[in-house]
């Protein structure tokens, strides 16, 4: 189980006159095993939404629920891929990925198997014993994804996880994520600036307004994907050429364009 609910959520940073309202009456229900992407102008509060589900930030009003219970603290049931990686610089790639499993007290054999699987998945096998500073930005990001993925969490919270990847690696990772999402579905809250990525990956896409962020519109991608049978196309570029895909993408783009000051697509 891993449903997420935002109910009338406000978030204000600071107090009184100096306070900044980041989120305004956010309402969003994410079902168990649903993949929802959030897009929106820079600074509209996407990361703040994700941090509230993760348990790093409390709502100023309203409630954030996971499985119907209010979020109180961070925990491995809600794995986070941070926008800035947040790897442990003094731990090797393996040690970074392993820590969450050690905290779960998994037997060493099982732990090694899971780590090996994650390393293979993220194509990191050649850098097992490297320290983060010895890796490129893209590789660091893959370690961050592996560290979250290996926990097999109910809820996966990804904050622009592919932002630092080059175009080719990005496509590979996107295809990989889709494959995983279909085989072993789990609840994913995914933040991105890339509209195509959102449409390609998500079951639903939530579009936010500029600050103070509100949910402007939620698009049901899954219905279109199933109706138009996107999954019959193996390659991402074939999907992106489909008329139904282009239509959704353009719709989101226009919607974002309406948000004045939006320059980040």
């Amino acid at each position, binding site marked *: 189980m891993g449903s997420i609910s935002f109910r009338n959520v406000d978030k204000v940073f600071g107090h009184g006159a100096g306070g900044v309202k980041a989120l305004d009456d956010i309402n969003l229900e994410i079902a168990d095993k649903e993949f929802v992407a959030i897009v929106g102008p820079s600074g509209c509060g996407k990361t703040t939404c994700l941090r509230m589900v*993760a348990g790093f930030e409390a709502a100023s009003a309203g409630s954030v629920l996971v499985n119907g219970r209010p979020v109180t*603290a*961070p925990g491995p049931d809600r*794995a986070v891929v*941070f926008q800035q990686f*947040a*790897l442990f610089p003094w*731990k090797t790639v393996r040690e970074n990925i392993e820590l969450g499993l050690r*905290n779960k007290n998994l037997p060493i054999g099982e732990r090694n198997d899971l780590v090996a699987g994650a390393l293979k998945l993220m194509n990191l096998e050649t850098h097992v014993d490297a320290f983060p500073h010895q890796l490129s930005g893209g590789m660091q990001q893959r370690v961050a994804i592996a560290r979250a993925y290996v926990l097999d969490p109910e809820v996966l919270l990804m904050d622009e996880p592919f932002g630092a990847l080059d175009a080719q690696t990005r496509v590979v990772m996107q295809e990989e994520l889709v494959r995983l999402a279909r085989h072993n579905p789990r609840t994913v809250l995914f933040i991105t600036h890339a509209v195509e990525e959102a449409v390609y990956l998500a079951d639903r896409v939530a579009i936010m307004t500029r600050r103070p962020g509100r949910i402007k519109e939620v698009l049901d991608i899954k219905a279109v994907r199933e109706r138009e049978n996107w999954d019959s196309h193996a390659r991402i570029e074939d999907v992106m050429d489909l008329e139904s895909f282009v239509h959704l993408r353009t719709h989101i783009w226009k919607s974002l364009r309406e948000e004045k000051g939006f320059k980040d697509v």
Partner: protein
Amino acid sequence: MAPLVSRKTLIGGMTVIGLVALWFGLTTLTGLVTGARFPSPAEFWFSLKQINGRGYAGSTLASHAVHSLKLVLMGFTVAVMTGVPLGLWMGWSRRVEAFINPVFLIIRPIPPLAWIPLAILWLGLGDAAKILVIWFSAFVPSAINAFTGVRNIDKPVLEAARMLGTPRWRMVREVILPASLPMIFTGLRLSLQASWTTLVAAELVGALVGVGFVLNMAQQDIYPGMILVGMVTVGILGWATTVLLARIERRALAWNVAARD
């Protein structure tokens, strides 16, 4: 072809040779500086032979040096073993900081050397008084830098550890401690310097053995050659312990690029 010695070593070597030549020139050669003020190389050599053979101020140079080194290492260890954990704890808990900070604020303006009379009064001229004073002086840099180290930890890294469900003690050992290690080592270096400074001062004031005691006796005997022997010995010992600490630091911080050069 690569040169046999690096440019840096070459220049450094020339500086040393130049200084020795200057020393020789000012004393033995021209007599501009008389032996009553500063010893000539020959007088220095004579003093060195004397303290190594017959001994001076009660024993040979080696046993004075070993005694001082032992006290420094003991005082330094006690200071670090108490200062670093306290600093980490203060960094981690605002409540502990609020509790202990006033003590720091009161004690810090007192120069560590000002504790020497009290320490001698309490513990006499023996080793215990020296270790106590070293502890007082070397404790503060260790604690403050460990504290700063914790406060400067990258917040997302702490959040990542919490997200992964890291239990309390592992959090300290595998996240907080390594994350603040670069700052902790800065503190250790300052603590080591403070240890030597304090020990020599304490031995100057009152001791029965040790390099500072050699300096004290040589001053009373108006014996410049032996004073220089004492000074050089302290310099070499301080340098050697610093190099050792730097080695350990480089090992411990292999993951840290900034510490590499």
